[in-house]
């Protein structure tokens, strides 16, 4: 396909976003989608946190969307001054061959005993199991209802969440100086 350009890709992506928005409005009313982000090439739907799991299940099973493949879950630290974290879901549909980006934005005060809470989607896609463990491990997002939210890449006695912008490396490990 010679005329395959990013411009046309964006228009088809926008078409999916608008259609999904209509479907979600019909199913959940106007509370589910709080905003549409159009920063770059891939527009994203910002989903209300409480509705996330229901929205994901709906999008997976609806015949028009059928997002059966969860590509990726990324936790993003929006910066210390913004006081929020995002969790970004990249969905794909194998039969329809289209993609969709969902975002959940959670306000948080960054205290280590008060993690941002997002409902789990591991009941919708099992991919989310390990991806959510990774987001918990490195970014400190607590996924409510996750069956096995242990650290995955770091040792279980690691302190803090290294991908946070305000992360400080530990001075000691079990009382032993490591610096």
């Amino acid at each position, binding site marked *: 396909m010679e005329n395959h350009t*990013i411009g046309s890709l964006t228009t088809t992506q926008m078409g999916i976003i608008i259609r999904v928005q209509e479907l979600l409005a019909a199913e959940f009313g106007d509370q589910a989608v709080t905003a549409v982000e159009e920063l770059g*090439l891939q527009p994203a739907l910002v989903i209300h946190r409480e509705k996330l799991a229901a929205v994901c299940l709906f999008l997976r099973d609806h015949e028009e969307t059928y997002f059966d493949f969860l*590509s990726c879950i990324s936790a*993003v630290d929006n*910066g210390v001054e913004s006081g929020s974290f995002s969790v970004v879901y990249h969905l794909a549909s194998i039969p329809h061959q289209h993609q969709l980006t969902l975002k959940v934005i959670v306000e948080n005060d960054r205290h280590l005993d008060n993690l941002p809470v997002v409902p789990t989607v591991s009941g919708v896609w099992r991919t989310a199991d390990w991806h959510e463990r990774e987001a918990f491990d490195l970014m400190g997002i607590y996924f409510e209802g996750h069956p096995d939210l*242990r650290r*995955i890449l770091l040792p279980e006695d690691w302190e803090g969440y290294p*991908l946070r912008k305000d992360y400080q490396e530990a001075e000691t490990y079990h*009382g032993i100086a490591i610096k």
Partner: protein
Amino acid sequence: MALQLSDTPSYQEVQPYQGAQRAYEARLAAIGAEEMIINMGPQHPSTHGVLRLQLVTDGEIVKEVIPHVGYLHRCFEKHAESMNYGKTIPFTDRMDYLASMNNSHAFVMGVERMLGIDQKIPKRVEYIRVLVCELNRIASHLIAIGTYGIDIGAFTPFMWCFRDREHIMNMLEWASGSRMLYNYIWVGGLFYDLPVGFEERCGEFIRYFKPKLPELDELLTANQIFISRTANIGTLPADVAINYGCSGPTLRASGVKWDLRRVDEYSVYPELAFDIPIGKGEMGCVGDCWDRFKVRVEEIKESVRIIEQCLERLEGPLKRTADFDPRALVPKKVNLKAQDYYVRAENPKGELGFYFVTQEKTDIPKRVKARGPSFNNLSVLPELSKGVLIADLVAILGSIDIVLGEVDR
């Protein structure tokens, strides 16, 4: 200085959110009298690196597998947040170190699309990229097949595969200067044009390699011992594979025709003719270990076809010229507006994705998340290996073909 271990609070007191960890420990403490916990790895040869599997066994039967990953965690994502896009490319090479070209291709493609220069890349550059990526795909699949033979107990295929892979390694070393970690594909172009005579040598390799494939088939694919060890073992139904996010040969072996080279039609793949092999259940049922192995064998043949077409064009209409500069479009500084973008590409092991969150006025990204195919393919292992024999677990793990550099990043 005396260590005062007793004075420091234990991590249980420091860290909340340890409920799942406690539940896991309690689960292992409460195993039945018949059950035994066996640690496989992190130094076990059949785990292909530093993977540790905790097996809850009852005699020879594996009741449960608990994978522990992270022994090779090298903070790729944290590194990527502290340096510019060009400097991150060598780090991507080290993720799936058996297919470094494919990793950097995916990464570079994402940055180029955000810059809006992906349609301006010269055709010769794109064809060279596809050529080296497919060479690397063959090398990666040769390792998968060879080491799988070893896992099952066949030593000769391993030697044969490594012999042929060595030719590819030598060629890529000639082009990039490095044997495995190339840093060859750059944002906007290439490190250098191919060395003079590369096309001829590559053509010579293809002519040498093509007759070797039927030999490998005879030795392993149709080998009755091999079939007995792999057919009907570890059957992965298509719906389970999709739900677990499996991709690449692992997904295609379950009968799903899903190849991002065709779905996304990126780079020059739309101009190239190749088929997508899928598992057909010839020796057992669709999605068993033998199918996963067979899909890789078939993919090597398709990659050979792609390389032949690339060579034809690189020696014909896209012939090298004296004034051709593969670095002409390489930006001095990657200036991006604040945006986010998820790019995905078909790696030898499956869908490799990079999620970029960029920030204004700097060429250092705010966040780069890597979605490794091996990470997702490995997560299906506990599901696949419920109630299998320990020996079959080795066959299942080998058929998934993970590389720990990418699981742990």
